[in-house]
C-alpha cells in the first residue's frame, strides 16, 4: 500500500483553485532550470533572463502589455467556450482571419481618409474571426463533427490562405516583390493609448473586454447558462435543448474575440499584413485561459505571465543565446504543472490508513477546515 492517498473533498477547494496557478509557475521555474541545465544550457541564467530581468526594465513592461493584450483577448473568448465544454482550439486561425478581414478593408480604403475607417476594420476583424469559427459551429450543430479537430484543421487552412493572399492578390505593388501588403495609412493604424510609449489602444480594449466578460459570466443569465452547461456536460452533449445554441455562442464569442485580437495586432504593432503574422498567440491563449482558471480576471494576470515568456524569451535569445523554442517549452510546462496541481482542488492528499486520514490532511493551504464543514455549498469557480 502507498503511504500517500487521495481523498475526495466534499467541495472544491477555493484556496487551491487560486494557489494552483502560482504553484504551477513556481514548479515551472524550478524544474525548468533543471531541465535546461540537463539539455546543456545555463538553466539558472535562462530562468533569470526570461522571468526576472524583463521585470526590471521599464521598456520591457510596455512590451509585456503589448504582448499580453492579444493573449488576454483570445483567451477570454476561448475560456467561455471551455467553460461550456466547447473545445475551440482554432483561435490561431480565427486570429489570422480577423487580421485578414480587417486588412481587406484597409486595402480597399488606402486612398481614403476619415475616422470611420479604423472602426470598420475592427468590426470586420471580429466578423472575420466569427465567420471562421462558424464553420466548426455549423458542422458541430448540424452533423455532430468534433469541434476540436475541425477548428484545429482550419488553423492550417488559414495559414495557407494568408500565404496565398500575401504572395498573390494582396501583395504591395510598390513593395519590391516582398510578399506583404502596403503599410496601413494613419487612419488605418491603431492610435496609442499613451503617446510616446508602445501602449496602443488594444491594451485598454483587452482590459475592458476582460471586465465585461467577468460581469457577463457572473451577473447575467447567459453567463449562468454557460457555466451550468459546463458543469453538467452530459446535458450539453446529449440533452438536446440549449446545446446547439451554447456551441454557437461559445464559438461566436471565441471567434469574434480572436478576430478582434488579430486586427488589433495587424493595425497596431504590425501596421500591415505579413506572412509572419501568426505568432502562435492562438495556441498560447489556450494556456492563458487555463492558467487564468477560465476566469476573465485571472486571464488578465495569466496573460502577463505568458507574455513574459515571449518578451523574456526574445531577450534571452540575444543575451545568452537560448533558442527561441525555449519559451514554448516553459509555456507547456506551466500547463502540465497546472493540470497536475489541479487534482488538489478536488482531492486532498492524506497519509497513512483511512482511519487517521481525517485528522491528518497533508500539504494544505488553510482551506481544509472550511471544506470539512458539512454545510452544502454551490461549487464556485
Amino acid at each position: 500500500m502507498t503511504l500517500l492517498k487521495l481523498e475526495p473533498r466534499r467541495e472544491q477547494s477555493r484556496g487551491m483553485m487560486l494557489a494552483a496557478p502560482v504553484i504551477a509557475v513556481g514548479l515551472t521555474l524550478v524544474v525548468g532550470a533543471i531541465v535546461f541545465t540537463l539539455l546543456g544550457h545555463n538553466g539558472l541564467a535562462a530562468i533569470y533572463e526570461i522571468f526576472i530581468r524583463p521585470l526590471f526594465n521599464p521598456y520591457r513592461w510596455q512590451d509585456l502589455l503589448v504582448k499580453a493584450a492579444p493573449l488576454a483577448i483570445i483567451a477570454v473568448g476561448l475560456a467561455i467556450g471551455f467553460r461550456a465544454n466547447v473545445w475551440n482550439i482554432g483561435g490561431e486561425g480565427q486570429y489570422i482571419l480577423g487580421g485578414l478581414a480587417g486588412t481587406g478593408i484597409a486595402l480597399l480604403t488606402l486612398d481614403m481618409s476619415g475616422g470611420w475607417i479604423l472602426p470598420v476594420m475592427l468590426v470586420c476583424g471580429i466578423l472575420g474571426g466569427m465567420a471562421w469559427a462558424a464553420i466548426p459551429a455549423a458542422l458541430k450543430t448540424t452533423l455532430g463533427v468534433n469541434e476540436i479537430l475541425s477548428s484545429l484543421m482550419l488553423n492550417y487552412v488559414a495559414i495557407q490562405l494568408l500565404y496565398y493572399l500575401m504572395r498573390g492578390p494582396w501583395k504591395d505593388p510598390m513593395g519590391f516583390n516582398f510578399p506583404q501588403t502596403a503599410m496601413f495609412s494613419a487612419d488605418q493604424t491603431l492610435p496609442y493609448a499613451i503617446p510616446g510609449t508602445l501602449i496602443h489602444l488594444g491594451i485598454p480594449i483587452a482590459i475592458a473586454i476582460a471586465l465585461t466578460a467577468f460581469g457577463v459570466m457572473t451577473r447575467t443569465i447567459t453567463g449562468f447558462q454557460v457555466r451550468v452547461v459546463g458543469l453538467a456536460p452530459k446535458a450539453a452533449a446529449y440533452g438536446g435543448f440549449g446545446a446547439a445554441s451554447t456551441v454557437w455562442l461559445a464559438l461566436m464569442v471565441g471567434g469574434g474575440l480572436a478576430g478582434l485580437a488579430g486586427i488589433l495586432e495587424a493595425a497596431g504593432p504590425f501596421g500591415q499584413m505579413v506572412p509572419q503574422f501568426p505568432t502562435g498567440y492562438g495556441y498560447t491563449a489556450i494556456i492563458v485561459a487555463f492558467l487564468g482558471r477560465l476566469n476573465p480576471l485571472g486571464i488578465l494576470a495569466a496573460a502577463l505571465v505568458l507574455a513574459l515568456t515571449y518578451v523574456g524569451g526574445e531577450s534571452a535569445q540575444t543575451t545568452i543565446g537560448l533558442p527561441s523554442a525555449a519559451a514554448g517549452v516553459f509555456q507547456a510546462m506551466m500547463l502540465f504543472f497546472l493540470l497536475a496541481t489541479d487534482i488538489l482542488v478536488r482531492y486532498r492528499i492524506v497519509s497513512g490508513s483511512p482511519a487517521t486520514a481525517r485528522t491528518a490532511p497533508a500539504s494544505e493551504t488553510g482551506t481544509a477546515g472550511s471544506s470539512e464543514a458539512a454545510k452544502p455549498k454551490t461549487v464556485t469557480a
Partner: protein
Amino acid sequence: MSLDLLVAILMTVAGAATPLLIAGLGELVVEKSGVLNLGVEGMMLIGAVTGFAVGTTTGLPVLGAVVAMFAAALAAAIFAVLTLTLMANQVATGLALTIFGTGVSALIGAPFVGITTNTLGPIFPDALTSSPLLRLVFGHSPLVYIGLALTFGVAWFLNRSRAGLILRAVGESDSAAHAIGYPVLKVRYLAVLFGGAMAGLAGSYYSLVLTPMWAERLTAGRGWIAIALVVFASWKPGRMLLGAYLFGLVITMELQAKAAGFNMFAPEFLASLPYIATIAVLAIISAAKRGGTNAPACLGKPFRAAT
C-alpha cells in the same frame, strides 16, 4: 501514363500513408482503452527529432527509430500520469502535450537543422527491385511493411486475443471491468505508452525516411489527421488502413501536382487540401453516423476506483 510513373505514384502514396497509419493505429488502441490522447502531434515531433538526432550521430537510422519510440513513449508517460493517476482533463492535457512536443522538439532539433542523414531506406536487395512491379512490392522502407503488419496485429489483438478483450472492456465500461477485477489503470497506462511509441515511430518516418532531415514542426499537423482518421475508421483497424492510404493519395496529389507544374490551383490551396479533406471526411462520417457512433463508451472520462 507509363508503368514507371504509376508505380512511382503508388509508392509515394504508401510512403505518405505509412506514418498516418502507424500513428493512427496507436491512437486507435489508446482510444479503445477509453483514453483520448490529443498529443499525437507532439509525440510525433518528439519521435521525429530524437530519431533524427540519434540517426545522424550514430549513423544508424534503425537505432534512431527505436529511440524515437522510447522518447515518444516517455512523453506519453507524462500524459498518462496526469490523466490517469492525477485525473487531469484529457483534452487539456493532450493539447499541453502537443504544445510541449512542439517546443521540446524545436529545442532539441536546433543543432540539427539543415543537415541530412542516412535514411531508413529499402531493405530488400537491389536485384528484387529491378522491374517497376517488383519495386512496388519490395522497394519500400521497412516502416511501410511494419505499418501493414501492425494493422493485422492490432486487428488480431483487439478482436481475437484475451488481452484485447480486456482492453475493450476497460474502454467500454471501466467500472464493470474494475468490478470483475481487471486493472483498469494498468491497462490504460500500457495502451497510452503503446500509442506514444507508435506516434514516435511514425514521427521518425518523417525525419528518417520521407524528408530526410529535421525542421521545426516537421509533421505539419499530420498527428491531428491521424486522430481524425480514428474517427473515420470507426475505431476499426481495417478501416484505418483504408483511411490512411486514402489520405496518402490526397497528400500525393498535392506533391504530384506541384511536381508536374500544375497551375490550375494555387500551391497554397493544394497544401491545405489534406486539412480540408479531413474536415470533409469528418463531416461525411458524422452525417452517416448521426444518432450513434462506434466510439468506446468511456472515451475521455477519468476513472477512479471506488475503494
